[in-house]
């Protein structure tokens, strides 16, 4: 047997295609008739597929496959919350990526806030997507932007950055203070900071 499962190219290999086909069928079935949970520790079969997607489809395809499963199962906020809480970092990332498609309101914000408290850049990058752009309140959103600068998550990852940054004088102050702190310490100011700062400037002042 082979010790590792690797895709030679960017396409799902044949076994992964078949696996995904079955997994999507189970997810679609759950969407049509949600199974009754029998115990807090027993998971629906599509949820087990959600957990195992990395090894069956390859780590590079895991985000895509997991978010597709969530959308096919039409996972509601309770399900998304459970999968996030029970998930590995990779599974939590997929839940965050799926939020804009599945949760129209702000009720999944606690998951975004949880991810923003971590220092795991994979989770931070997934947390600052379109769902955060729509729902994250100003204070938390500014801290999320600052945290990206702290941890090296490229600010291009922050969804809708120009719109939310525009006229945000408080964000501008935080960025300037951070730049001052870096300069005082003799450390370089990240180029991304200047880019975000430029976005905060009202057009008439630029």
């Amino acid at each position, binding site marked *: *047997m*082979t*010790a*590792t*499962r*690797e895709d030679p190219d960017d396409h799902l290999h044949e076994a992964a295609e078949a696996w995904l086909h079955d997994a999507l069928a189970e997810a679609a079935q759950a969407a049509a008739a949600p199974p009754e949970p029998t115990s807090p*520790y*027993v*998971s629906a079969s599509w949820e*087990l597929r959600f*957990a*195992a*997607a*990395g*090894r069956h489809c390859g*780590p590079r395809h*895991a985000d895509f496959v997991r978010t597709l499963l969530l959308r096919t199962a039409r996972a509601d906020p309770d399900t998304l919350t459970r999968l996030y809480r*029970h998930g*590995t*970092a*990779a599974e*939590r990332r997929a839940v965050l990526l799926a939020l804009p498609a599945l949760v129209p309101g702000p009720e999944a914000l606690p998951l975004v806030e949880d991810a923003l408290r*971590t*220092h*795991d*850049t*994979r989770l*931070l990058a997934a947390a600052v997507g379109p769902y955060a752009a729509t729902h994250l309140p100003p204070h938390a959103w500014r801290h999320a932007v600052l945290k990206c600068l*702290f*941890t*090296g*998550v*490229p600010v291009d990852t922050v969804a809708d950055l120009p719109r939310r940054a525009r006229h945000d004088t408080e964000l501008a102050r935080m960025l300037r203070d951070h730049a001052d702190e870096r300069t005082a*310490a003799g*450390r370089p100011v*990240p180029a991304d900071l200047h880019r975000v700062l430029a976005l905060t400037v009202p057009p008439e002042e630029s």
Partner: protein
Amino acid sequence: MRIFDPHIHMTSRTTDDYQAMYDAGVRALVEPSFWLGQPRTAPASFFDYFDSLLGWEPFRAAQYGIAHHCTLALNPKEANDPRCTPVLDALPRYLVKDSVVAVGEIGYDSMTPAEDTALAAQLQLAVDHGLPALVHTPHRDKLAGLRRTVDVVRESHLPPERVLLDHLNETTVKEAADSGAWLGFSIYPDTKMDEDRMVAVLRSHGTERVLVNSAADWGRSDPLKTRRVGDAMLAAGFTDDDVDQVLWRNPVAFYGLSGRLHLDLPSPAALHEGNSVLRGGE
């Protein structure tokens, strides 16, 4: 020299250790769940720990170019505490995770009836999840403990070639080898095995099915002991291929039985850009 440390508790180690391990040739490791020194009082405390072995710790390891997998279980010591045993009910939800490559560490500590129950139940969980098992042998009354362990494995549905018996030494290696299991040796600064005794064991028993680990944790231990064994093997006349078999191919073969090993990682140079463990790129 490429090194796979098949048993090390990185949660208790620093980023300096990760860097030193990478510099010494470590490119992959397995972190078994175990006792944390301070007894836990609730299953939730285990779940946070398991989450860490599935989340934050692999992230830290990846920043230093090291592939991180884990083994999960209720450890033998805490299997005796009724406040902790409900962990057994929750384990199935964790054993399906991608980076779990075995059930472990299971086995005996004081050889109690509660430990009997936990060991047998978790060997069955390994069977149910297509996983091998990492079985710790006790520090006290070791030979009797090994015999009892081998008996329980024999009574289980898990074939011995899917079992790694760990913390072996001169007194237990023969019976462990006769059982058909894989043979693990932990190299410590002053307890368990040392590198010269390890070389002597390799001379008499050969390199087949033998794995060497640092088992480094929060106690006096050294995460570079795997490298020391490789150096001692070469000094004693073993070939580069022998060293590669013990320090890389054997652990890859054993944990590869899970079908879940993923050993491709970007180089740490690429990852150090934007490294949050460096706290804001200072």
